[in-house]
């Protein structure tokens, strides 16, 4: 990975979100550079998922801004954010259970400005990378195993040809063998020039895949470090995650 800091792709400035009367995010700020893999670590319930949702427009922040390539996208409806180049892979995968694998992929593929040839090329690429999906292309999404669904969720978001992928705990509930596969997928995304904001509980994977890591606690970003440092000195990790 290059040592020079990449230019900023996504900038989150001091966002506050609420759930009814509960104040969830108390001024979260972070940055992801072009093509950069950045991690977001923290215990359960601190606001990691909410941060991703705020970027995606699923939970509009009441205060603060979210910028994509310098342009504000705060509060835009999610379908606009998706079309602007943000791919979202939620916790629980949430693939469309009664659509086939192919139809699931089509939800990201059927966009304006993409001709048939390019669509076919994208599909081929994703089937080549995820052969198990190619095998099951006419099977209903709900019949796939957990690991296969995770791959489908990622592949589906990749159909949007996003500039950044928001991954929410992709290894949750997966067997160890699959965890390394997720790591491989993140590497491929990085090689393709796609930025990744990775929310995870799995520390080793995060430290290995990411260039920088943010630590969230109680709805605020408390610490920020280069992954290289953390691999050497993980006292901070213990402090924020209690592992």
């Amino acid at each position, binding site marked *: 990975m290059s040592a020079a800091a990449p230019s900023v792709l996504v900038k989150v400035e001091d966002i506050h979100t609420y759930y009814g009367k509960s104040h969830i995010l108390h001024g979260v700020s972070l940055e992801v550079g072009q093509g950069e893999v950045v991690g977001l670590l923290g215990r359960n319930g601190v606001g990691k998922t909410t941060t991703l949702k705020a970027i995606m427009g699923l939970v509009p922040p009441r205060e603060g801004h979210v910028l994509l390539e310098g342009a504000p996208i705060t509060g835009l409806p999610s379908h606009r954010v998706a079309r602007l180049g943000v791919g979202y892979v939620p916790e629980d995968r*949430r693939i469309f*259970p009664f659509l086939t694998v192919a139809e699931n992929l089509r939800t990201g593929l*059927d966009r304006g400005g993409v001709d048939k040839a390019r669509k076919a090329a994208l599909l081929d690429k994703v089937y080549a990378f995820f052969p198990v999906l190619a095998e099951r292309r006419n099977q209903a999404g709900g019949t796939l195993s957990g690991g296969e669904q995770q791959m489908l969720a990622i592949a589906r978001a990749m159909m*949007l040809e996003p500039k950044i992928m928001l991954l929410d705990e992709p290894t949750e509930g997966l067997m160890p063998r699959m965890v390394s596969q997720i790591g491989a997928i993140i590497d491929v995304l990085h090689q393709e020039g796609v930025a990744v904001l990775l929310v995870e509980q799995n520390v080793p994977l995060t430290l290995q895949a990411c260039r920088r890591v943010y630590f969230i606690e109680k709805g605020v970003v408390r610490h920020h470090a280069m992954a290289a440092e953390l691999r050497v000195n993980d006292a901070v990790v213990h402090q924020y995650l209690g592992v």
Partner: protein
Amino acid sequence: MLQQILIQTLNGVITGMILALVASGLTLIFGIMDVVNFAHGELFMLGAYVGVLALAATGNFWLALVTATFVVAALGAVIYVVALRPLLGRSPLNTILATFGISLVLQNYALWQFGPVARKIQEPFTGQFTLFYLVYPWYRVLIALLSAAIIGAFWLFLKYGKFGIWIRATTQDRTMAQAMGIPVPWVLTGVFALGSGMAAASGVLFGPLVGVNHAMGLDWILKAFIVVVVGGMGSLGGCIAASIFISLLEAYSSLWVSPSQAIIFSSVVLILTLLFRPTGLFVPTPK
């Protein structure tokens, strides 16, 4: 006796197909948008009236059918954007009330514009065949076939078209559909328009069988609700099966009781369904 049963079977299937067309719009709207569209019967009624006007203007039944469908679909889109979209996210009571209010307004509007006397739509062709001791018009058979064709086309559209996938994705997970770039607000408007259009088409098809008047929607909305629940909310196949089932039930029961009392039988079916198979009689029990 056998003759009567066979005749009622035919009647039941034919009414069932029209009911299926009306109810499929309703179940679509119910299943995808969680909107209980009380005004659905009035969209049916308005479709019939637009059909009357278009028929008078052009003299062509088929043109009238198409015109009514598109006009009421457009009206549906307007109603959705103006009155229902603002209610997104609020409790379902609000949409029930709003659509109830809309149904009152539309009913009285029709009464005001067209008066209390029933209008007639002339069927596109006359011609009958003899069924036992009855003279049975061919047109009735045509309606059933047409309704089936429209529902079939609709099913294909849902299965294969891009919009069909968008609609199905929105039904299954609205949030993720949006996160995948699907313009959900427009999908919802489109679905409401589609449902409205289908109701209108049924109104025109059914028009020649009865008089077209402002209250014709009331009867249908109740039956349609029963069908939607018995068939399973959002299930097109269940809706068709339930429509035919309920219509056959009512047709057979009319051999013993008066037609207006037939609703009691369907209501009993509804209640039993709700008690024992609340997801719908014709829907496989979810795991």
